[in-house]
C-alpha cells in the first residue's frame, strides 16, 4: 500500500512538472500567434492598434503577469478549458479532443493491449517449444511483418483489402449515414470500420512482442529455479507459466507501459492513412494549421497519458514482482 501511495505521489509531482513545462515553453519561444496573424494582415496594409487588440481578444491571448497567467492556466487545465481552436474556429479545443479521444483510445488502445497479450502468449509457446514449428513460424513471420514500415503495411492493406477486394471500408470511423449511438447496429458499423487500421497496428507490433517475450523466456528457462522446478517433478505447464513466463514477462512490462503511453499520440500515420478521426488525425491537422491551442492541449494529453500509463505499469510491476514492493 505504501508502495502505491509513493508512486501516486510521484505521479502527481511529475504531472505538475509536465503541466508547468507546457506553460513555460511557449512563453520562452520568440514570437506569438498574434504576431503571425498580424504579419499576414500587414501584407495588405498597416495594422492599427485597434485591429491588433481585436485579434488578441479573439485569440484569447492572455495578459497580466506571468504568475497571474500561471494561476489562470492551472485553473483552466483543471477544468479542461483549453480555449478555442484556430482551425475549427469557434469550436472549443476540449470539445474537439473529447470527440477524437474515444476513437483512438478504443481502437488503438484495445489493439495495443491485444497485441501485447497475443504476442506474449505466442512468445511463451515459442520459447517452451524451442526449435519446433511453434517456435520458427511466429518468430520468422513476426520479424518479417514488423520489418515493414508502419505506413507501408497500412497502404498495402488499404489498397488490397479496401480498394481491390472491397471487403472493408477504407476511411472514417463509421458510415456517413450513421449517427453515433450505443445501438448494436452502430457498434457493428464502428467495428467494421476499425478493422483495417486495427489490423495494421496488430500486424506491425505483434512481432516485437513475440520476439521480446520469446527471448526473455529462453533466458529464464536457463535459470536454476526452472531446472530445480523440473527436478522437483512439477508439471510442465506449471514450470512454463508460473516459473519461466512469470519472470520473463517482467522486463516486457516496461515496454508495454511505453506502448500504452504512446497510444494517444503514436497512431498518427495509421489514422492519417485510414482518415480515422482520432487524436493522431487531429494532431496532424493542428500542426499543419499552426493551431497553437489545439497543439498545446494535445501535447499535454500525450504527456499525461504517458505518465498515467507508466504509473499503471508501475503498480502492475509491484503486484507481479515482490522485489520492487519494498
Amino acid at each position, binding site marked *: 500500500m505504501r508502495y502505491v501511495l509513493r508512486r501516486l505521489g510521484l505521479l502527481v509531482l511529475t504531472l505538475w512538472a509536465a503541466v508547468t513545462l507546457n506553460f513555460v515553453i511557449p512563453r520562452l519561444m520568440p514570437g506569438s500567434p498574434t504576431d503571425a496573424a498580424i504579419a499576414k494582415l500587414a501584407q495588405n496594409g498597416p495594422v492599427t492598434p485597434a485591429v491588433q487588440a481585436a485579434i488578441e481578444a479573439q485569440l484569447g491571448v492572455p495578459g497580466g503577469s506571468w504568475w497571474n497567467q500561471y494561476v489562470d492556466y492551472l485553473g483552466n487545465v483543471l477544468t479542461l478549458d483549453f480555449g478555442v481552436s484556430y482551425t475549427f474556429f469557434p469550436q472549443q479545443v476540449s470539445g474537439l479532443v473529447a470527440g477524437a479521444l474515444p476513437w483512438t483510445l478504443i481502437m488503438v488502445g484495445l489493439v495495443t493491449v491485444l497485441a501485447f497479450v497475443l504476442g506474449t502468449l505466442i512468445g511463451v509457446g515459442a520459447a517452451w517449444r524451442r526449435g519446433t514449428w511453434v517456435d520458427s513460424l511466429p518468430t520468422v513471420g513476426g520479424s518479417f511483418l514488423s520489418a515493414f514500415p508502419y505506413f507501408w503495411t497500412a497502404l498495402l492493406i488499404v489498397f488490397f483489402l479496401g480498394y481491390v477486394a472491397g471487403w472493408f471500408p477504407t476511411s472514417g470511423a463509421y458510415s456517413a449515414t450513421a449517427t453515433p449511438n450505443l445501438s448494436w447496429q452502430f457498434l457493428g458499423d464502428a467495428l467494421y470500420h476499425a478493422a483495417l487500421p486495427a489490423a495494421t497496428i496488430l500486424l506491425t507490433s505483434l512481432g516485437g512482442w513475440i520476439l521480446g517475450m520469446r527471448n526473455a523466456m529462453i533466458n529464464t528457462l536457463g535459470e*536454476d529455479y526452472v531446472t*530445480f522446478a523440473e527436478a*522437483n517433478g512439477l*508439471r510442465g505447464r*506449471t514450470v512454463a507459466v508460473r516459473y519461466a513466463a512469470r519472470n520473463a514477462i*517482467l522486463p516486457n512490462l516496461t515496454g508495454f507501459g511505453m506502448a500504452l503511453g504512446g497510444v494517444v499520440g503514436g497512431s498518427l500515420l495509421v489514422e492519417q492513412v485510414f482518415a480515422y478521426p482520432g487524436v493522431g488525425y487531429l494532431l496532424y491537422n493542428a500542426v499543419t494549421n499552426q493551431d497553437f491551442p489545439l497543439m498545446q492541449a494535445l501535447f499535454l494529453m500525450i504527456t499525461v497519458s504517458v505518465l498515467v500509463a507508466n504509473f499503471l505499469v508501475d503498480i502492475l510491476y509491484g503486484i507481479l*514482482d*515482490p522485489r520492487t514492493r*519494498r
Partner: protein
Amino acid sequence: MSLLEIQDLSVVYEPRGAAPTLAVKDVSLTLEQGEFVGLVGESGSGKSTLGFAVTRLHKPPARIAAGRIVFDGVDVAQLDAEELRVQRRGGFAMVLQSGMNALNPVRTVGNHFTDVFAAHGHVPTAARRRRATELLDKVQLPSTVLDRYPGELSGGMRQRVSIALALSLEPRLMVFDEPTTALDVLVQHAVMDTIRELQAAEGFTAVLISHDLGVVLESAQRVVVMHDGEVVEDGAARQVFEAPAHPYTQMLLSHYADPRAEVVELPGLERRAPAVTEPGAAPASAPAAGTVPAAGTPATGRRAARDAIVVDHVSKVYPPPRRGEQPVTAVDDVSFRLEPGAAMALVGQSGSGKSTIAKMVTGVERPTSGTVTFGDLQVDRLRRHQLKRLHTDVQMVFQDPYSALNPLHTVEYTLTRPVENYTGLRGEAARERVLGLLEKVGLTPVEQFAAKLPHQLSGGQRQRVVIARALASDPQVLIADEPVSMLDVSLRAGVLALLEELRAETGVSLLYITHDLLSARVITDRIMVLHHGRVVESGGTAQVLRFPEDEYTTRLLDAIPQPARRFGGVA
C-alpha cells in the same frame, strides 16, 4: 539389489556448429541404499554432467550417448517425460549449486512447497502447511519463512529451503551438486553439517558432487574421483585419504594442508612457522600491532625511495540501503601499515569489509573518516587526474580472471595498453616490455601467448595475464582480491607461488585479500582478521593461525574441512 547402477554411461555434448565432446566416458558405478558418496573432480572433469544425467536433468546439447542408468530396477535413461516426472517423488532429487537462484523470485517459499505437493498429490491440501513447517524444521528454519519471498532470505537460508524442498519429495537418492560453493565460509560449514545430519536421520542415499576434496573427505563414506570424464579412483573415504591409488588423487590431496600446522607445504610453496610464541606468553620480538615488517631479504630497490601504505583510523559508512534503515558501517576504525616488500593478508567472510578496504587503498572509494597515505600522496583526497600517479605504484589483481579480461582483445593488446599508459614506451620498446611481462609471469613461449585471445587460455593462465597487466606499471604494491578463489585447486598453488616469487624478485609489497586461511598462511607474513568491519585480531600469520586468540578466528579455522581431524592421521 543396488539402488543405482550406472553401466558404461557416456554423455556427449553436441553443440551446433562445433565438434562434439565426450564429457563422461564409459562410467560404471554402483550405489547402495543409504550410502553417502562424494564425487570429486576439477572443472571439466564431467562430475556435474554425470550428476545431471543420472537425475535426467541434462539438457541439449548434452545427450546420453550410451549406457544404462538403472535406478531401483528401472532404466531411467528410457523413461518418457511423464513417467520421469511422476517418479521424482520417492525417486531421486537434486540440490543445485547456486542455492541463490534455485528459488523462483516471485513466489513465496510456501508456494514452492505447495507447487511440489500439488504436482505429486502426496500431501492433502489441509496438511500442506503443517508438512512444509515440518520440513523447514528439519533444515533448522522457522515456519515464518513460508510467507517470505526468496529475495528476503540469505544465501544460506535459501540453500536450506531448497534442501527442504528436495526432501519434500521423500527421495531415496539425493544428488547435491556443489551445494555450498556459492556460500560464505562459515555458512558453508553449517549447511554441510545439516546435510550430514539429515542423511544420517532420513537414511537417503546421498551423492555429494564437489570440486573440494576436503569437503568430500570430511562428509562422505566413499569417494569417487573423476578426471577428464573418467572415474580414476573409487574407494572408502579413509582409504582414499590415507593411501590414494591414482596420481591425480595424490595430486589433489597434496593441495590440502592445515593452516594451523607448524610447517605448511603446498606444491611449490613451503612456509615454516618462525619462532612462534605459545599463547599467553608475550611475543618476544613482535612488532607493534598492525605494522608489517619487510620480508626476510629486502629486495634490491629498483627505485631509491619506496613507500609504505599507511591506513590510519579509517572508517567507511554507506548510507542506508532503504529509507528508514540504519546506515551500513562497512569498515570500522581500521589502522595498519604495509611496509615496502611486505605481504599482509586481510581475511574475513564476505561483508567483513576486506574488499572495501582494498577500494579505499586504491582510491576507488573515499573513507568516511580517517586517512590513507602512500608516500606523499594522501589517497583519500586524490582528484581524478592524480589517481594515475597512485595507480602507477598501486595495482590491483581481480578475483575473476574470466571477466577481468576483454574477450575481444589479444593478450598483447591487453598488456600494451597499460604499458603505453604508464611507462610511455611505444612501438617495439612497448612490445619488448609486454613480452618481458609474460616471461615474468611464466607464460612461455611468450610470442605464442601474446597472440592468444582470453578464451584460448585456462583460468590459471588468464590469472597470470591479469597479474602481468598489474605489473605493467612496475608497481610498488599489488592488491590481490581473492586471486585464486575461482581457480581449480591444482592451479592455485602455481598462481600463489608466482605472487610469492614476484615479491622476492621485484620487492613489490602484497595486500592479499581472502577468506582462504591456507593460502594466506603460505604467502603472507602478517595477517589481519576482520569481522563486521572491525579488526578482531592481527599479528604474524603463523602466530595468529596457529594460536588464534579471538573466537571469530577460531570459527574461521574450524570451518575449513579437515579430513585429518576425521581420520586422525596427518595430512
